[in-house]
């Protein structure tokens, strides 16, 4: 009987990528050892060499079992070089180590290609492979490496920002922007902002001329050529800018989506054996308690009452312990995130000619897996910023009386229900004058405003802020700090900054230990209490009935300071009787998610509080607009509202009944008051 090998692929990919991560860490250790001694070659610890060799060996074995020939071929060459290094036939010089690090990148790219079925950059991989093959013959005087830059494989998600301004005559060429934007829309997630500022007054409009322009954000596995191709017919008839934004994955998303996408990427969780043992122990105890209780129940007499109570107390303890051990399975040490920074720091310090050492403290602090996964990008960005802007060049450091090597310290510790992570560098610190000048130049603050140093430092979190004089490809494209903050906020956390000129900068991230606890605002609708996640709330306003309009075929809209947003009456949505029939007695809570806003009509705001999220999925069918429930202090159950879901509901307009088919449009029109 043939076995379907595909069922094992996922495990192979995960194990291989993990093996490669270990290999990378060990190689970086070797490299650091060499650098510390100021030597070109390393007297390598045999154990380190063995670890590296074993990783390559098991990748080769696994890929040959599953028939990933490209991976086998590359891993074979790498394995033979590593074997030579173990035997002492090949000396691990710093050049060799750099080549081995590049080989890790190649193998990773090949494995990702095998997993996604998309081609990687084969030329770069071949070139590294050739260099590996030639390695032995070149010893001992190896020429400097030629380092091809690995292009991201085609499957890599890119975040494109496109500014498309057709010239007036574009329509005359037979081109239709609608076709172009449709094609873009088909490529991936597309956010379009139209610019109608050039559209003249009604009487001046010449309908055959194109006055509109667009700003498009496009996210997806899209190479630049594909976008170029779409615009190829109109390049001469428009002004066009296509820019790639770094850190694509930093777009703020809701927690639910983050969890969903993480689950899609990594369906499995690797758990240490002691944690599983603890779990089995607790379950064992639970079974004993259960046997004891059924024994008492089967021949119950009132004499046994005290034993029954004791048994129930034990049951409670077992349940609590079980809950704790299950929760701990989702917890991973922060070193998972921290280790990812080592390679980045290594590559970047080489390119920038800086000497930098990363120091980890408290990396064994555990935090929810979802939080870790979403934390890697912001941490990467902060460390990259410190390295690029904070840490000075060696000569500059010496001149300032500092040691040549700069230090970036990542320190994690638990404080109450939070995990605190500090990213601290001993570089030049933030220049308040430069930040202030830049903010004035960008029109973010007025030149006359009198800001404290703390307030000035806060400016770097504003969208579009960047003070880099030369835009490097490493950081400083004006996207970043605002997205970092948004990302941390979407996890229910916060970012603070402290800086001392000449002494360094420290970013402090505070994150919830788990996503099982939420900061919420309780609101009253009729006799029910609902919880709104605080992160989604923009403001609350008293409702002005004259600002409410109801376009035909769509749900109610509310106009707030020239901005129109759908209005959702929670009492109607959840079929709850509102406390008052007078519309103006209620309040409107403006919520935002995924860049869209909506107004939620509620009777009253009650209190801000932390609530424990209780999942509903196993007990009830999915109710649109509700994500979970919680138990309030007085024992009543309150539903936690799913703001992204509510906003989707509001924007699709499925909340209110649409006009009956037989109605004429005019008669079914509910007095629109769009003024």
């Amino acid at each position, binding site marked *: 009987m043939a076995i379907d090998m595909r069922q094992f692929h996922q495990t192979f990919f995960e194990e291989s990528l993990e093996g490669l991560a270990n290999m990378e860490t060990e190689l970086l250790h070797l490299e650091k050892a060499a650098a510390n001694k100021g030597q070109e070659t390393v007297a390598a610890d045999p154990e380190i060499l063995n670890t590296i060799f074993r990783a390559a060996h098991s990748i080769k074995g696994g890929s040959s079992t599953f028939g990933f020939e490209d991976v086998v071929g590359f891993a074979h060459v790498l394995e033979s070089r590593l074997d030579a290094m173990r035997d002492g036939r090949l000396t691990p010089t710093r050049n060799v180590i750099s080549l081995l690090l590049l080989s890790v990148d190649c193998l990773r790219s090949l494995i990702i290609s095998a997993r996604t079925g998309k081609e990687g950059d084969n030329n770069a991989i071949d070139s590294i492979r050739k260099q590996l093959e030639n390695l032995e013959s070149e010893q001992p005087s190896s020429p400097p490496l030629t380092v091809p830059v690995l292009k991201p494989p085609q499957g890599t998600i890119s975040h494109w920002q496109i500014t498309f301004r057709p010239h007036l005559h574009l*329509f005359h060429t037979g081109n*239709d*922007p*609608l*076709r172009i*934007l*449709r094609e873009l*829309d088909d490529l991936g997630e*597309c956010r*379009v*902002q*139209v610019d*109608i500022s050039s*559209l003249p*007054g*009604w*009487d001046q*409009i010449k*309908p*055959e001329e*194109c*006055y*509109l322009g*667009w700003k498009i954000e496009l996210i997806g596995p899209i190479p630049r050529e594909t976008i170029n191709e779409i615009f190829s017919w109109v390049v001469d008839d428009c002004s066009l800018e296509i820019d790639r934004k770094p850190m694509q994955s930093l777009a703020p998303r809701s927690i639910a989506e983050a969890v969903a996408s993480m689950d899609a990427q990594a369906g499995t969780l690797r758990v240490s054996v002691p944690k599983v043992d603890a779990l089995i122990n607790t379950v064992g105890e639970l079974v004993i308690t259960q046997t004891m209780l059924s024994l008492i129940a089967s021949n119950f007499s009132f004499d046994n009452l005290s034993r029954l109570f004791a048994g129930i107390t034990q049951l409670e303890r077992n349940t609590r312990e079980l809950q704790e051990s299950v929760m701990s399975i989702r917890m991973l040490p922060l070193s998972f995130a921290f280790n990812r920074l080592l390679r980045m720091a290594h590559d970047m310090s080489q390119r920038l000619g800086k000497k930098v050492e990363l120091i980890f403290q408290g990396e064994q602090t555990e935090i929810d897996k979802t939080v870790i996964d979403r934390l890697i990008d912001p941490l990467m960005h902060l460390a990259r910023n410190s390295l690029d802007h904070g840490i000075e060049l060696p000569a500059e450091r010496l001149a300032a009386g500092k040691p040549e090597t700069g230090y970036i310290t990542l320190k994690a510790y638990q404080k109450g229900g939070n995990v605190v992570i500090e990213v601290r560098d001993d570089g030049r610190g933030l220049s308040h004058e430069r930040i202030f000048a830049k903010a004035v130049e960008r029109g973010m603050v007025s030149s006359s405003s009198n800001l404290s140093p703390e307030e000035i430092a806060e400016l770097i979190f504003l969208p579009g802020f960047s003070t880099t004089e030369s835009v490097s490809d490493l950081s400083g494209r004006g996207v970043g700090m605002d997205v970092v903050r948004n990302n941390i906020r979407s996890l229910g956390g916060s970012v603070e900054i402290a800086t001392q000129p000449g002494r360094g900068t420290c970013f402090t991230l505070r994150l919830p230990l788990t996503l099982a606890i939420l900061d919420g605002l309780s609101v009253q609708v009729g006799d029910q209490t609902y919880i709104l996640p605080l992160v989604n709330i923009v403001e609350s306003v008293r409702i002005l009935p004259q600002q409410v309009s109801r*376009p*035909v*075929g*769509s*749900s109610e*809209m509310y106009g707030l300071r020239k901005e*129109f947003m*759908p209005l959702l009456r929670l009492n109607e949505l959840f079929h709850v009787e509102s406390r008052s029939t007078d519309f103006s007695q209620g309040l409107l809570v403006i919520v935002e998610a995924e860049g869209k806003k909506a107004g939620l009509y509620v009777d009253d705001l009650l209190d801000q509080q932390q609530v424990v999220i209780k999942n509903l999925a196993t007990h009830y069918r999915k109710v649109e607009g509700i994500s979970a429930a919680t138990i309030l202090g007085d024992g009543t159950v309150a539903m936690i509202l799913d703001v992204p879901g509510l906003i989707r509901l509001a*924007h*699709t*307009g499925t909340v209110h009944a*649409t*006009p009956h088919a037989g109605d*004429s*449009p*005019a*008669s*079914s*029109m509910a007095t*629109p*008051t*769009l*003024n």
Partner: protein
Amino acid sequence: MVNSMDPVHIEQTANATLVALEATLGIQDARVLHERLGSLLTAAKSVVVDGSRVERLDAAILQVLAGFARSAHERGLALSWHSPSPVLQQAVHVLGLESILGMTS
């Protein structure tokens, strides 16, 4: 006589002016559409645009509609939509014109 290729049909009802868009609209219709809608800007109080029949349209048409919506809004003229067809809704969405046209789909 009304041109059979007229891009819109305008009908006056008791409390609003009903503008029904034709099924197929293109840049060749943009000028007539502009003229016909222009006459409503001064004459009408509230306009309901019926987009249920629209099967094909282009950016030129949507540009006229966007200009109309903006002018209508400036003059305090109430504009609303009656069952915009999926094609129309999708085109409005793709060009990012939802809020200008007051159409949330």
